[in-house]
């Protein structure tokens, strides 16, 4: 990335726009799994095309019913929320122990 951002390299503008297009068409998210969801041991997830939290869960093998709260970049979201490159996705289980 650092070399493509150097304006002295010929073709820099074109490279940057192609990187941007790539990000819109897929990407990588950081995942933080809590409590009983930690056993999936995932810290990141890469995807191609558009994707949602639900797609991510299916690909990771996590059942939707095991997820209580979805938080993306600090805000509560839903299972059908779309993911963007660079998102930090935190998943908390449904907990009820006392």
């Amino acid at each position, binding site marked *: 990335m650092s070399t493509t951002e150097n304006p002295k390299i010929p073709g820099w503008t074109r490279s940057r726009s192609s990187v941007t297009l790539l990000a819109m068409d897929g990407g990588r998210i950081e995942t933080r799994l809590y409590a009983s969801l930690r056993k999936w041991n995932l810290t990141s997830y890469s995807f191609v095309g558009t994707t949602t939290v639900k797609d991510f869960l299916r690909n990771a093998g996590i059942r939707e019913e*095991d997820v209580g709260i979805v938080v993306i970049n600090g805000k*509560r979201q839903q299972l059908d929320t779309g993911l963007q490159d660079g998102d930090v996705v935190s998943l908390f289980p449904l907990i009820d122990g006392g």
Partner: protein
Amino acid sequence: MIDDAARERYQRQLSLDGFGAAAQEKLAEASVFVAGAGGLGCSAAIYLAAAGIGRLRVADHGNVELGNLNRQILYGERDIGGHKVAAMARRIEELNANVSVEPLHVTLGDDNLYALAKGSSLLIDALDNLPSRYALNKVAIRLGVPIVHGAVQGFFGQVMTIVPNVTACLMCLYGGRVSSGAPPVIGVAPGVIGLLQATEAIKILTGIGRQLRGTLLLFDGLQTRITEVEISRDPACPHCGRGRGAAPVIAPARRPA
């Protein structure tokens, strides 16, 4: 009025900024309903008693078992087989005889929660299952009394203050979903979360500080990380939204194997 004994007992909190005799009197006049005498209830109740809450009504149907003692910190081996609420009341009375404790050895449910919670200034959700928590949520909304919700699993736990018809409620948070089975728990998790619940209760009752109104605090003891998430009200919520009075929507969910 605060007498000399109370002035001595509470001297270290009476000298707090924004606290003083007025706040102490508010605590003394308060009646708190602690739903559940497990790990959360033990932790929350004993600190509320130490702080000088006037009346504590504690309800739980359980008897003390050896398997409770890793986390239900008010009970000892000699309490095994006896009612949890009776053992809790003894410990509270030993600590602070000024607190009026009402131990209720009952199974909490839709049929009795309203009558038991009525007259309370605040409810502590220290229960161990979501159906009972939803029942308490519904009663709090009917009574217009705040609930401090707490729940734990493993090294993890969460706290949220619910102000009926102002903030999101428990039904807004989980939408009626339930889980099953007793989760693994390390004693420090309900210890920490119960104390956060007691902290919220003291602030609500005295009107000081910032409260977790509509904010879910998530505590991860393994990573020592605290996350806060704003939880919005659900306009269609069956308990506090336009879905009020509709049929219950309890959907089963299973825990991971």
